């Protein structure tokens, strides 16, 4: 059966002599892995449309239950070339690609995640604060997938609190956390930024200018939380850390 949809390339893996396994985040089928015949050859009809982050109109063919349909067509809608052209930008985007791949099961349509991912790419491309765009994506993505940490109030009683407990995925107030060791203490600014990122849309977020310290504090809490859920750190985060050393 032939399927047509819109998708963003998340990952490519070399297969055989000149073939590729391409993982797409699609608007209608969720994450789809497909087999592309000979795109690595110089005169391939796929051209550069199978590079990571390229948004394209795709067609793939395969039986309903096939795990690896064959990619038959890919026409670029937007290439996001400027993100790929800059090492630091691409590394940041690699984190959200990896996060998406870990949390979204194959063939489960999720239009909201697709729109969120696409918006994040446009934000990063259009000189928006890159770090803020990445954290915004991570928080909204975790909310959509049901894994968002609770940082605005105690997860048990709803009272104010600033100590985050990673094993519980929430802030706990002094009464509820009696006898427990906190994973991190949050500043009031971080809690406020988290609330804003969770409720505001991109146009509003475009107008705020949080300090680097606040962003890095919130980022480390979110990374700690995803690390705990996945039971391992993201490879791209480790890569970024290695380069910054």
């Amino acid at each position: 059966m032939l399927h047509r949809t819109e998708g963003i390339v998340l990952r490519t893996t070399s297969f055989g002599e000149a073939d590729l396994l391409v993982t797409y985040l699609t608007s209608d089928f969720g994450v789809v892995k497909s087999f592309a015949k000979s795109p690595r050859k110089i005169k391939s009809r796929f051209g550069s449309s199978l590079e990571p982050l390229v948004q394209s109109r795709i067609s793939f063919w395969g039986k309903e239950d096939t795990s690896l349909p064959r990619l038959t067509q890919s026409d670029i809608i937007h290439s996001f070339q400027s993100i790929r052209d800059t090492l630091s930008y691409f590394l940041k985007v690699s984190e959200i690609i990896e996060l998406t791949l870990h949390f979204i099961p194959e063939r489960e349509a999720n239009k909201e995640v697709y729109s969120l991912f696409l918006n994040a790419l446009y934000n990063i491309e259009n000189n928006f604060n890159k770090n803020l765009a990445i954290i915004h994506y991570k928080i909204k993505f975790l909310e959509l997938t049901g894994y968002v940490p609770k940082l605005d109030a105690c997860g048990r009683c709803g009272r104010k609190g600033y100590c985050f407990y990673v094993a519980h995925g929430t802030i706990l107030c002094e009464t509820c956390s009696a006898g427990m060791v906190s994973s991190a203490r949050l500043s009031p600014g971080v809690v406020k930024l988290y609330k804003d990122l969770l409720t505001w849309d991109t146009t509003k977020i475009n107008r705020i200018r949080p300090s680097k310290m606040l962003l890095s504090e919130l980022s480390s809490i979110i990374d700690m939380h995803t690390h705990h859920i996945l039971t391992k750190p993201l490879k791209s985060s480790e890569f970024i850390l290695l380069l910054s050393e």
Partner: protein
Amino acid sequence: MAQGIIENLITELIKLPGIGRKTAQRLAFFILAMSEEDVKGISRAINEVKEKARFCSECFNIAENEICSICSNSSRDRNKLCVVEEPSNILVIEKSKGFNGLYHVLLGALSPIDGVTPDKLKIEKLIERVKKNEIKEIILATNPNTKGEMTAQYIRELLKPFNVKVTRIAYGLPMGADIEFADEVTMNKALEGRREM
């Protein structure tokens, strides 16, 4: 009995890339019809390549000895170094006869999602070579894809403190292709890399 040994040969040949059952069957019967001397020649060549092939200690190309034939060739231009991802890339560049310098094989390309970090490639060895030798130009000939581009950018950053010219191979349309079928990214790169005539 004969069926068994032919089947065995077919099973072994299928292990090669691009060889399906039909092709393997055709090759097996062709080998059967070949002279004994030719078959022994193929068998000897396969054995030799597995026994003797190793990485050159200088450039990490495939070599028979400690140093490969390119690194030990005194007529090569030692001021120029071409950085490639895999030893197979050297064969293509050599075939073009457009480069007479030395090579450095990285044995891969950076990929954050796959966990391929700089320490897993021969990047540190490249920096050592730049420090030790009189290299004036480094040509980054990693693949023109995201992984290759990232690797090239990373190496360019590392080479900034050294007094060495760093160039990147050109991007664009392949010879014999028609502009009508070019995609927007390739066309854009071809326009960016245009040269005066």
